[in-house]
Each structure stands twice: as structure tokens, then as C-alpha cells.
């Protein structure tokens, strides 16, 4: 074996060369934002790794599915039917209210709210770095996903799309340190700004005066003011208020409704004014999605 130091530049030179290469890339990416094409190309290249990462989980799911007995399925079916019936009854009422609301809005002369379209997506990978909470989903440019698109799950707002590859997209969670979302308390319409803390179970409300009317347990819904998230979706619940007078503002913490640590299926939303259109993969998905809200 040849010794390491007999040929080529010294180790230190190579370290410096490689480091300067990495630092140049960092500069190009962060300061000049010129790396986006390279980034989406590389994401497509590295997508197999992400698919491999969720493979064991999918295999487990499959095994669990194969092991379910007939009785279990029957019971589940019964429960689901019950739930469906209840939901259908609720929807009847909702449709009526929606129509009424539209009529009233017309009378008042304000714009009628238009329906938004949606599409289900699955999580294929998580980025485990505590400095940036991100998910990768299995829908991308080919499905009409765009940057800044709102993403929900069945309980509440999850985050927004941050970058898009051909078949995958990256979602930045609302708990990320670099994210803030404009909210409204459902009880008394107080507007608040919730910032991610890096902890998946916690958002921090900013600039809240000590005399605020907020209470523990208040439901916070999106206010629609940021222009990214549509109005009225549930986001978080207040879990603690610290009115310590020594602090400049009251310290208010909220827990997101969306289960950010265990999301599997997400809902992509296309607001009515979005220029992009959803492109559905199959017929069945279209059929499931044409009921608009």
C-alpha cells in the first residue's frame, strides 16, 4: 500500500481546498440564492434514499394489514359507517350554513368566498435536524405543488411548502424556528403572532401585553392575514400564560393541534386565488377530492 503522504497535495491542502469549495457553495446558496436549480436536480437524484428510508415502515404496515382478521375488519367497518353517518349529518347542516353565509355576504356587498381544492399527500421522509423541522412529501411539481402552499392534516395547520422537486416537495412545519404564523383567538378575535420554538409541541405567542384577555384553553385559528394560510383553520391551543411583570411581554405558549411528530398523511390546499392547478394522479383520487370546502 502506498503511504498517504507520498503523492498529491498534502492533507491540509486538500482539506482547505474541499472546505473552500463547501464555503463557496454556502455563500452562493445563502447570500445569492443561486443554487435552486442545482438543489431541485439533486433532490430528484437523492429521492431513492428517501423512499428507502420509509420502506421498512411500509412493509410493517403491510404486514399489519395482512394480519388483520375478518372480525376486526367488520368491527372497524361498523365504526367507520357510524362515523360517516354522523359526519354526513354534520355536512348537511354545513352546506346550508355555507349557502346562507354566501347570500348574506352578497347582501353586504363583500366577495363570496371561493372554494379551495385539495389533495392528499404522504410523508416520505423527515429531516431530523432540530434546527429545521421539515418533512418530505410524495407530491411535487408534477402534481401542481408550488412554493408557499399551505399544508394541513386532519386536525389543523401543519406548515407550508418550502421547496419543490419533480416528484417530492419539502414542507416547513409551523414549529420551525424560522416560521411565524398570524392567528386569531376564536373566542374573542384577538390577533396574535405565533412563532415556532424548535419544539414540535410548542409555539410561542409574541408581543402579548400583560393585560391580554387570552386564557389557557383558548383555540387559535389562522387569521388569513399572512397571505399564505387561508382563514379559519385550527392551528393551536393555548397551554400556558405567564404574566410575570418583570418580562416585557406576557409569555404565552400554545400547542399545535396537528400532530407534528407523527404525521403520515397530509392535505395540500390550493386556495381559490392560486395560479397553480392540482394535477391528480388517478381517477379515484379525483372522485374523492371533488367535494370542495
Amino acid at each position, binding site marked *: 500500500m502506498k503511504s498517504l503522504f507520498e503523492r498529491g497535495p498534502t*492533507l491540509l491542502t486538500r482539506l482547505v481546498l474541499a472546505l473552500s469549495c463547501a464555503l463557496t457553495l454556502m455563500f452562493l446558496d445563502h447570500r445569492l440564492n443561486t443554487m435552486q436549480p442545482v438543489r431541485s436536480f439533486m433532490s430528484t437524484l437523492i429521492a431513492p434514499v428517501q423512499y428507502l428510508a420509509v420502506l421498512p415502515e411500509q412493509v410493517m404496515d403491510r404486514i399489519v394489514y395482512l394480519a388483520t382478521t375478518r372480525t376486526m375488519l367488520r368491527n372497524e367497518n361498523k365504526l367507520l359507517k357510524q362515523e360517516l353517518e354522523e359526519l354526513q349529518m354534520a355536512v348537511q347542516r354545513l352546506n346550508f350554513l355555507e349557502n346562507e353565509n354566501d347570500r348574506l355576504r352578497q347582501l353586504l356587498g363583500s366577495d363570496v368566498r371561493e372554494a379551495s381544492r385539495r389533495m392528499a399527500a404522504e410523508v416520505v421522509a423527515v429531516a431530523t435536524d432540530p434546527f429545521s423541522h421539515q418533512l418530505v412529501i410524495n407530491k411535487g411539481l408534477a402534481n401542481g405543488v408550488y412554493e408557499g402552499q399551505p399544508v394541513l392534516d386532519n386536525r389543523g395547520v401543519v406548515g407550508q411548502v418550502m421547496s419543490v422537486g419533480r416528484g417530492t416537495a419539502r414542507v416547513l412545519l409551523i414549529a420551525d424556528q424560522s416560521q411565524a404564523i398570524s392567528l386569531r383567538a376564536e373566542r374573542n378575535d384577538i390577533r396574535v403572532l405565533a412563532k415556532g420554538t424548535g419544539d414540535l409541541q410548542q409555539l410561542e405567542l409574541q408581543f402579548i401585553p400583560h393585560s391580554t384577555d387570552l386564557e389557557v384553553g383558548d383555540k387559535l385559528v389562522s387569521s388569513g392575514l399572512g397571505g399564505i394560510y387561508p382563514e379559519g383553520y385550527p392551528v393551536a391551543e393555548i397551554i400556558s400564560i405567564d404574566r410575570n411583570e418583570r418580562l416585557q411581554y406576557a409569555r404565552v405558549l400554545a400547542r399545535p393541534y396537528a400532530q407534528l411528530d407523527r404525521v403520515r398523511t397530509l392535505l395540500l390546499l390550493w386556495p381559490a386565488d392560486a395560479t397553480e392547478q392540482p394535477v391528480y394522479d388517478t381517477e379515484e383520487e379525483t372522485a374523492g377530492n371533488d367535494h370542495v370546502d
Partner: protein
Amino acid sequence: MWIKAGLLPLFITYIIGLVLMVMPMPLFLEAWRPDWLSLVIIYWLMALPHRVGMGTVLILGLMTDILMGSVFGIYASALLVMAYAPIRHFQRFRNYSLTQQALVVAVLIFIKRVLVYQLEHWLNDAVFHVSYLYPVISSAIAWPWVYLILRKYRRHYGIQ
């Protein structure tokens, strides 16, 4: 010829390292996930310093950046700085006992993580959590197993 025997097995270990790094895990284990890719890189740097070098580390680092969605070059630079010591002192490192190696690995991973944090702090105002350093401990615990498995793997495929 620049493609030498054993390129494919070597490549497979890199892929496994990358996959383990992004594999979804239950939340309570998440913070303790060992730094698999760094462990794999440290092993190969130490075992095959004439073959796995700064270039490999740079490419793997950039791939990590893509997978993690961080700014290009953050993980790459941290891994490069971390890689310097194992290449420089590979002969000494090989003669350590497994416990000593585990301690050195802990220090190396600590350096890597602190660098990543510092860069994230400068670029994106990241806030420090102690939990970010738990993997230093879990990686040190995982090291003997990684070492033994990879050694067996290397001998089996005769990677030199």
C-alpha cells in the same frame, strides 16, 4: 483504472448511512438517533485513508445538506473538519482499544455537531437545545458495533 474492486460495497454502506439518517423514528428515540453517517465515514477514513478522503466526505456532506434541507455546505464543512483528525492520525486510531475509539468518536461527533450548530446560528439564527448533543453519547455507544460490523463487511468483500 479509477474504479477499483469493492466500490459497490463501499457505496452501499454510504447509502445505508444516509438512509438511517432520515428514517422516521418514534419521537422519544428521535433525539437519541446516533449520527450514523458520521460513524460510517469515520470508519472508512480510518480503515482506508488512501481511498476514502476529503473528496468523498465533501460529496457525502453535500448529499446530507440536500436530505436535511439545510443551506448547501453546512454539513459538508462540518464533516470535512471532523474528517481531518481521523485521516491525519489513522494509524494511531487503529491501535486504540474499542473504548478509547468510542471516546475519540464522541469528541469528533461533538465537534461536528457544534460546527453545524454554529453555522446554522450564523446563517439562520438557530437556538441551541441540549438535546442536540444527545447523539454524541448514543454514537459513542453505537461505535463498537458499527466498527465490528463494518470490519467484518470489509474483510468479507475484501475492500482495500
